[in-house]
């Protein structure tokens, strides 16, 4: 292998001959080096502040990782609740500190496992949940007051949350002690991820219902995790990947403000899921972006919404690099990529990490691949000294200058959408989807032409055998078994109680009341996800699809 190690000529490659700036892989213009003149406005207290102090650029807590490490989660959950239960126990044994639950697509779309449309997807990308019985069995022997759980669920989030609360009650755990996060972010589903059911307006109202319920009953539970990750994987720029979730978070905040709550009741329950790594990844830029995000969110909350509480102004975020950065070629190279994503997230002061797995371009990750991603987090946390000092890059001319430019760029992206009628309008008319599709296409072309380098893919390739990694397989009997469970619970439950609860839920939906108490009654009666959603579809209708490309 004697490949010439030469980068393609780029503008500004030689700063002495060419005073122009160098364009990074993400389109940012950077200088050869940075000095004090690049941060003219720098005022330590106003720009950074100590960790845990406004504007929280350095981190949202005074002691950061010395006080508490980030939560290490790897996305898992598959097939049936018993299988997921054993995997959860395995991960907790391995030192994982929180659970991150993947639910199968039928559950995410409000279809029971016996629905013909669900035929191919039961238990495939996550665990199948039809009724409260599945949730009870999934957490059997896992005390819910001792762990925190994150649920990747959106259009049916209110149902899953109700089931989690009901499971806690059955375990004898006081729901007010529950910790965790429910994704519950519908706007990015219309933009990027696709698991929407109802039209935007009632969907946002449902999110408002869950936030309101959490404020009153489970105040330590993040009732929303507004996600920039998926839209970045779909083509959003790094700044858009913060701007759009911020606009989305503000939309949810306003929904609950309109119900008479104070900003400082609501804001502490909002959390974010932001990308650190992925299709396009620039190490320093990612760190600066996340620092800028913290500062900007604090300013928005304080200046625009008059937040007066630290909890309200702190931007809590988890980070994940998603599978889009993982390559099929030379898959072990992905382990290095994942490590850099994780290092960026740690240097940026993330509250939680959820990393992709090196075999992601092949199939659903194997145990070994998931464990490796967890070990990467543990190496950074325990082996190489990263968490010892808070915000170690703070004060770097380069990083501070990038942080300033990101704050401006995110603000500009937010204003653009606002000037076009707001996030909801731009999602309903497809403006954002079209823009992301254009950007994703441009990036793809750049990888194909070699303008953007991907090691092992368009540079430093080797002749690879048709590689056969060990691939994770779902038991083909999963669907039959899950339907068996569903039928059993349908026979055992009190049918009148189910009927009454569903009717009450429907009535509350028509009257636009908060649905959470009725969701709780329905799930406790063992009404299924599909039955509950059918009621709501009849009242709300279904969302229409934007198919621009």
């Amino acid at each position, binding site marked *: 292998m004697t490949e010439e190690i030469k980068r393609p000529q780029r503008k500004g490659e030689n700063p002495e001959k060419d005073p122009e700036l160098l364009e990074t892989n993400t389109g940012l213009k950077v200088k050869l080096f940075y000095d004090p003149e690049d941060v003219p406005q720098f005022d330590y207290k106003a720009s950074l502040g100590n960790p845990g102090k406004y504007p929280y650029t350095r981190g949202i807590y005074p002691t950061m990782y010395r006080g508490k490490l980030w939560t290490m989660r790897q996305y898992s959950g598959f097939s049936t609740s018993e299988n997921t239960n054993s995997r959860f126990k395995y991960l907790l044994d391995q030192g994982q500190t929180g659970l991150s639950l993947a639910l199968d*697509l*039928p559950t*995410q*779309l409000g*279809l029971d496992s016996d629905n013909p*449309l*669900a*035929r*191919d*997807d039961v238990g*495939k*990308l996550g665990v199948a949940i039809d009724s409260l019985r599945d949730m009870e069995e999934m957490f059997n022997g896992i005390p819910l007051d001792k762990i925190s759980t994150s649920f990747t669920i959106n259009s049916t989030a209110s149902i899953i949350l109700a089931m989690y609360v009901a499971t806690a009650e059955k375990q004898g755990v006081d729901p007010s002690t529950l910790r965790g996060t429910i994704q519950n972010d519908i706007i990015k*589903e219309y933009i*990027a*991820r*696709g*698991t929407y059911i109802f039209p935007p307006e009632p969907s946002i109202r449902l999110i408002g219902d869950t936030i309101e319920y959490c404020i009153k009953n489970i105040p330590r539970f993040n009732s929303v995790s507004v996600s920039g990750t998926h839209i970045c*994987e*779909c*083509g959003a720029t790094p700044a858009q990947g913060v701007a759009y979730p911020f606009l989305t978070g503000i939309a949810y905040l306003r929904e609950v403000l309109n119900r008479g709550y104070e900003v400082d009741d609501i804001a502490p329950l909002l959390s974010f899921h932001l990308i650190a790594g992925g299709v396009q990844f620039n190490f320093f830029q990612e760190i600066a972006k996340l620092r800028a995000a913290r500062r900007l969110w604090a300013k928005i909350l304080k200046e625009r919404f008059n937040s007066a509480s630290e909890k309200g102004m702190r931007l809590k975020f988890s980070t994940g690099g998603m599978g889009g950065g993982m*390559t*099929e*070629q030379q898959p072990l190279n992905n382990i290095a990529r994942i490590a850099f994503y994780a290092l960026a997230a740690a240097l940026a002061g993330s509250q939680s990490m959820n990393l992709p797995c090196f075999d992601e*371009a*092949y*199939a*659903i990750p194997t145990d070994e691949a998931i464990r490796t991603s967890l070990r990467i987090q543990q190496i950074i946390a325990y082996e190489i000294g990263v968490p010892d000092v808070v915000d170690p890059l703070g004060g770097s001319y380069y990083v501070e200058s990038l942080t300033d430019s990101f704050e401006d760029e995110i603000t500009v992206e937010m204003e653009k959408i606002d000037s076009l009628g707001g996030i909801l309008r731009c999602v309903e008319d497809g403006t954002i989807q079209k823009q*992301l*599709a254009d950007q*994703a*296409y441009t990036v*793809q*072309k750049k990888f*194909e032409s070699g303008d953007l380098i991907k090691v092992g*893919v368009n540079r430093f390739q080797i002749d690879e055998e*048709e*590689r*056969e990694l060990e*691939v994770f397989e*779902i038991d083909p009997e999963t669907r039959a078994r899950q339907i068996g469970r569903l039928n059993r619970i349908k026979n055992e439950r009190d049918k009148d109680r189910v009927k009454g609860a569903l009717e009450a839920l429907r009535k509350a939906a028509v009257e636009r009341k908060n649905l959470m108490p009725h969701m709780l009654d329905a799930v406790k009666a063992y009404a299924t996800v599909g039955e509950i959603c059918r009621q709501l579809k009849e009242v709300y209708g279904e969302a229409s*699809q934007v*198919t621009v*490309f």
Partner: protein
Amino acid sequence: MSSKRPIRVLIAKPGLDGHDKGAKIVARGLKDAGMEVIYTGIRQTVDSIVRTALQESIDVIGLSILSGTHLSLCEELMEKMAKEDLRDKMVVVGGIIPQKDVIRLKEMGVRAVFRPSSKVEDIAQCIRNEVQKA
């Protein structure tokens, strides 16, 4: 077929998965390569894909499947296409497809399988070659 009429491609996303960035990139790339492209949108049933294929007199169906459901979906599609006398239409699949399944898909009659490493221009070239052969 006549070289005057552009190749008509239906990009379809069967099943419940909603991740369609790849489907859209391929749709756009084939359009830029001079083909006429229809994108179904997400969550299509095999029946609706076959119906659209008939209505739009397409030459090629490209399925995008990332959720591990490719075997059962392709089997169903090939059966229904045979029933509708669409046997001569080319079916290609793209997505997260383990190598061992590529062989099984080809046995079913899928003409080409593209994975994350495939380039859009190669997909276009492959479609052009195959359609010209037919």
